[in-house]
């Protein structure tokens, strides 16, 4: 059942491929469909499938430039202008929240990427969400049933965004805690994956999302406009993000954020993250660690 559900996500993702390539992408075992992380299209090469164990070529014809153009047309509904801001950042989101990274000859204007001419490759990333990822964790992040300000810390690729999304979903839905209004600043659209105004990944019924603008501006916009009880952001990467979070704390909003790092000591050594500890902006820290190939969540008090 689980395999079938995951395979369906893959089948939904490859709908944006030109029909004759899609046939080859679907001509793989169900288990591989369920495990596939990405489908890679490179001009002059056959399709490639990225699996947890590595990348493998699929049988079938070699990809041509026009295939990539059709991919963009199908993913954007022949409306490049409506997704151009995303394309300028190198990707676009298709129905279902699946993300297509694009490469080619960049068109620059005043130093900024305006788009791509002659697309050369694309990475179709299958959007997968793990509902229940925060089971056993969220309970430790609440005091009297209410979420406390939490920072999720882990090196890249360990599932920070997945955990963040599931905590948001449960807090927003009041699943195992008090229901709260969540405002999410989703700069790169990786948490909610808005598609024509609708989140493609489950973020709960009381969640408002701003996408596509710098995190600090998104956070301030949400704070002013949406009266949130929880302010969520994926990946604190700049001093402006920290400043915006500080303002939010002053307004009595609960914070929920992720950052790259391995632990408290690591944070203390980094100028960017040090204020988060010094100003006591977060009360809980969740570290994600991998031991013997198994992902584990370690919850610590920061007070």
């Amino acid at each position: 059942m689980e395999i079938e559900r995951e395979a369906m996500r893959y089948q939904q993702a490859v709908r944006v491929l030109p029909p004759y390539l899609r046939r080859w992408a679907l001509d793989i075992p169900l288990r591989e469909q369920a495990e596939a992380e990405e489908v890679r299209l490179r001009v002059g090469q056959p399709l490639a499938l990225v699996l947890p164990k590595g990348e493998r070529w699929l049988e079938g014809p070699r990809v041509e430039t026009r295939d990539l153009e059709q991919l963009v047309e199908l993913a954007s509904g022949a409306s490049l202008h409506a997704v151009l801001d995303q394309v300028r950042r190198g990707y676009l989101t298709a129905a279902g929240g699946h993300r297509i990274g694009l490469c080619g000859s960049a068109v620059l204007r005043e130093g900024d990427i305006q788009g791509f001419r002659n697309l050369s490759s694309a990475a179709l990333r299958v959007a997968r969400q793990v509902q229940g990822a925060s089971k056993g964790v969220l309970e430790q992040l609440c005091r009297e049933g209410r979420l406390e300000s939490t920072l999720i810390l882990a090196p890249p690729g360990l599932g920070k965004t997945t955990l963040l999304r599931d905590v948001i979903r449960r807090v927003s839905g009041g699943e195992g805690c008090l229901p709260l209004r969540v405002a999410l600043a989703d700069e790169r659209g990786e948490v909610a994956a808005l598609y024509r105004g609708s989140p493609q990944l489950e973020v709960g019924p009381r969640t408002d999302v701003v996408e596509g603008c710098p995190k600090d501006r998104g956070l301030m916009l949400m704070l002013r406009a949406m009266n949130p009880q929880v302010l969520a952001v994926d990946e604190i990467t700049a001093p402006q993000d920290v400043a915006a979070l500080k303002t939010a704390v002053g307004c009595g909003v609960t914070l929920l954020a992720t950052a790259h790092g391995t632990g408290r000591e690591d944070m203390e050594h980094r100028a960017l993250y040090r204020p988060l500890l010094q100003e006591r902006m977060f009360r809980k820290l969740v570290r994600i660690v991998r031991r013997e190939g198994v992902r584990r969540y370690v919850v610590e008090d920061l007070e």
Partner: protein
Amino acid sequence: MVRMIGAALVAVGSAWLGFGAAGELGARVRALEETEEGLSLMAQELELDAPPLEQLMQRLIPRSRGGARRLFEGCQKALEHLEEEPFSLAWQRLVEKEEVLGREGQACLYPLGEVLGRCGWEEQRRILEVTARRLEQAGARAREERGRMSRVYQALGLSGGALAAILLL
């Protein structure tokens, strides 16, 4: 009696051809005007909030008329079947069907297939405005031709019919 009926039929047929030709000129003028209006509306909507083409067509269909409406309805259907036919080819096909626009009108519209939904909205709006201006010019020429030729066609039809009737009688 049979000869009389035959002569009458020839006269009426000839006149119908003449009036038909004149009517075609009028229809071309109308179609060019309608399409120009439709493209101007499209440019306005793009400037308003640059909606995806599917939404754009939904907004334009009830507000446009004649040939422009047919074109937008065709686009809406084509957008539902992008897997089968790229939008640029669908546009080409839809324009080809609008013979009433004449070759000049169709030639103005063909390049739009390579632009709509394929670049930023500012660029699309600019090209839509240029195309609308070209259609306006084509419309002016068609109006002039209608003024000049429709009476000629009507007169030719009537006089041709009369001549044939005389000869037959």
